[in-house]
């Protein structure tokens, strides 16, 4: 556990992180503490096992996938910067933040929120949610009393709703369009405490 006053100074490239994620220093400080609490053995990075120590995640049907989203392809570790960057997806949209034309798409924009959600489905990273991938998610998210057949027909129907080009899979574009009316900004945002 880092001492409270010097916490921020321990974080390298703090300025860039704040710039990139839009978190305030207070947020970062709090998240850094959390990071350290999760980081068993002060490795300086988190492993999937570290996430596993969060008890509630085990009861979350898609908890594993969300943990997986913290680790980029093929990697077994996540450092603090990536950790914060992932969490920054869930920062609420801020209106007052001056929108500079040259700045890249903010990490908490609607589109990147959606991309995060999309990637939870798209486990093989081929840019499409296939029927099988959807089925897997459905299987974890629906309760036991729904039979496999029902699951399959739900999956078929879902794809049918979103699928515009008829390839029996949902591309990111189709995903975005099908959720056009959903208030993503609201539903994919969490209020981070200071």
């Amino acid at each position, binding site marked *: 556990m880092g001492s409270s006053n010097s916490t921020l100074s321990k974080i390298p490239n703090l300025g860039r992180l704040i710039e990139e994620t839009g978190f305030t220093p207070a947020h970062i400080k709090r998240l850094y503490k959390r990071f350290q609490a999760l980081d068993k053995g002060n490795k300086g990075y988190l492993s999937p096992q570290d996430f596993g120590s969060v008890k*509630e995640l085990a009861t979350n049907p898609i908890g594993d996938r969300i943990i997986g989203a*913290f680790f980029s392809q093929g990697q077994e570790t996540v450092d603090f910067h990536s950790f914060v960057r992932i969490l920054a997806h869930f920062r609420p949209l801020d209106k007052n933040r001056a929108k500079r034309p040259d700045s890249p798409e903010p990490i908490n924009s609607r589109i990147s929120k959606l991309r995060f959600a999309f990637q939870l489905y798209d486990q093989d990273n081929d840019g499409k949610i296939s029927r099988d991938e959807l089925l897997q998610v459905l299987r974890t998210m629906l*309760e036991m009393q729904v039979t496999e057949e029902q699951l399959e027909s*739900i999956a078929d*129907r879902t794809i049918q709703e979103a699928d515009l080009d008829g390839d029996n899979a949902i591309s990111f574009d189709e995903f975005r369009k099908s959720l056009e009316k959903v208030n993503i900004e609201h*539903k994919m945002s969490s*209020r981070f405490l200071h």
Partner: protein
Amino acid sequence: MKLPWGAATPLLLAALAGTTWASSAHNTDPQSNTNATNGTEGNSGLTSLPIVTWKWHHVEQPYLMALWVLVCWLCKLVFELNHKLTATIPESALLIFIGFVLGGMIWGADKAQTFTLTPVTFFYYLLPQIILDAGYFMPNKLFFGNMGAILTYAILGTVWNAVTVGLSLWGVYLGGIMGDLKINLLEFMLFGSLLSAVDPVAVLAVFEEVHVNEVLFILVFGESLLNDGVTVVLYNVCDAFVTLGADRINAVEIIKGIVSFLVVAFGGALVGVVFAVLLSLLTRCTKNIQIIEPGFIFIVSYLSYLTAEMLSLSSILAITFCGVCCQKYVNANMAESSVTTVRYAMKVFANGSETIIFVFLGISAIDPEIWVWNTAFILLTLVFVLVYRIIGVFALTWILNRFRLIPLEIIDQVVLSYGGLRGAVAYALAFMLDGNKVREKNLMISTTLIVVYFTVVLQGVTMKPLVTWLKVKRTSKTEVSLIEKLQNRAFDHILIAIEDISGQIGHNYMREKWNKFEEKWLRPILMKSSARKKQDQLFNVFHQLNLKDAMSYVTEGERCGSLAFVRSENNVNLDFKKKLASDISDIMPDINSDSSDTGPYTIPMTCIMQDNVPTVCLDVEEDMRGKSMRDTENINTHHVLQMHLYKARKQHRHRYSRKEMGLNKDENEVQEIFQRTMRNRLESFKSTKMGVTQSKKIKPAKKDQIPNGKHKTHSFEDADFSDDNVFSSDFAGGVASGGGGPTRLSIRSGGGIENPAFMPDVDHASPLHTPPWSAVVDDGVAPSQRAQVQLPWSPSNASRLTPLRISTRSNDSFILADRPTAQGEQPPPSQPKSTPK
């Protein structure tokens, strides 16, 4: 209080007399007026037996009540004829205007305002249903999600309104602008408190038409709902203070007032929750009295209102929370039809009394007695009410925004403050003022009325343009789609996980905890076990979507004139039908000529009596109808068959029963199974490519039999198909388990052997010369066995055949069994009755 409204409204009673006649029925005949007022009925000196007497007094109260309700609703009807009008001016405003007109008519006839909205009527008979409706249909997730904001507005905002308006008016009064008024500080506070509440009725009436986004709506609406409770409490406290008198109020009393405020408000909510639990438990066991099941919702909720009133707790909060808390469990516990009933009945009551309230708000104005004009007082009140509302909203929102995930925008705040409509609650509270204590009661009433009219009419009318002009986010009317539902669920999970990972206890975390708790403890207690199983929401959406699809599918099919493609999906035997339909149609002309005059009702009966062969007749004849009606597509036969049977089903519904509605779950279903058996057997029959000649032979036999069986036929037809397929299928299952055993034996042994008792008849009338039984006996066995082989998809199939088999074995017994139906008016024949159990 015998009569709900009449007894409750002293003023109404005082001069119920001819006035309504005059106003509502436009009958200004003075004779009837005096007659009614004096109570002298023309028959006092009775000399001979009057054939008809004029008993106006006898029915006066309920009659006037009913008339008023009718008149109010008719007003609404008139408005709704013109959509342009209601699109620009909100209905509530229009109703108030109509009230003005009606009030003017009453006053013109009576020279006094005899009909006004009295607090008792309002609070006991008009308001509860509106509040219950609001609570029952409350979008719970949204409501509890924004609970913090709603409570802030409802409690702090209301208190702020009351105090500032009261104090400001008092300050101005001290300044001397208002002239000489006999109002002290406490009375100003009392006045401020009664004017503080945003009225749910008025707000709903306006905002329902505007369609602002759901968060904004829930804020305005939730606030208006809860702050009514707060206002009433505040009013009561102030009223008590006024009664006590200024000199006896000290710090202790004020603290007591605050405590009482809290106790009354939260106690009321608690009473509501308790009643909601009771109600949920109650609906767990109402399965057997389904027809009055919906009634429980209303009566228990109303009791929660009255109980809270009795305990001097906030009754409005009680009924609100009763509705909010019970909705989930009640809807899961009750049968679907009951849920629908509750839903519609609730709307009827709420909408009805809302209409009445607005009309009476208008009528009440036309009374010179209450109008005391004090320009300064009235205008200043209006200004203060508006200004402090705006200040209050902006100040509170500023605080709230520091804690909100999605801050409320300026535009939202403008709409929120502009949506501060005052309504009937304020008026009723003003009316309740004690004229002995509050000397300027009439001034307060008239000021309240002005405020109400101003807010409801002016703000109501301008609300829509304002919302459009400010480009407030509207709700987009969305169709439910599976992917959205799925994704919403996923979002919930994601957010919870993120909160877990980032280690904070946020809104989602709390909701998750509550859900877990609810699932573990509340649901097992409050929900039927059968209902609990059906809880998966995602699956429900899927189910609903499928149902919708199926319905549009069928509608489309009916439009095109054929339901065959619907059936083709689940009917294994369709192929046979296709193949054989042409064969059948070949023979149809003959049959048609034979049976054309027998009418549709005779068919099932004769079929039953005649065993398997006539089943072909049945379908062939129906087929014929189909032909003559429309196209040559063979598959249509089935469609037409269904059409006809549907009519029979409808006819059945004419039968009146207090306990049952439409569906009959009793013995009659047995008859339906008969009919289904026919169809199944027909299909198996067709598959054997036979029955062409037989059907011809049998037809005449049918004719012969009709004289005996005519009545029976009718009752059979009544019973047949009186229900949907769902019923029959499980029912068939019941038969399978119960009566299947022995009868199946009979299938093997006696199947297809015709009863000679009637076969000669058949032969007699038959135009053909082939001995009927030879053919029947030979082939009759085959289809029945084949039928069992061919329809393996449901275990009940074999048993579906059983009733028919019974008839096969001994036709007489069947007729006998049926006889009571014809004579004793008892639909259940003894035999089928025993089968289902």
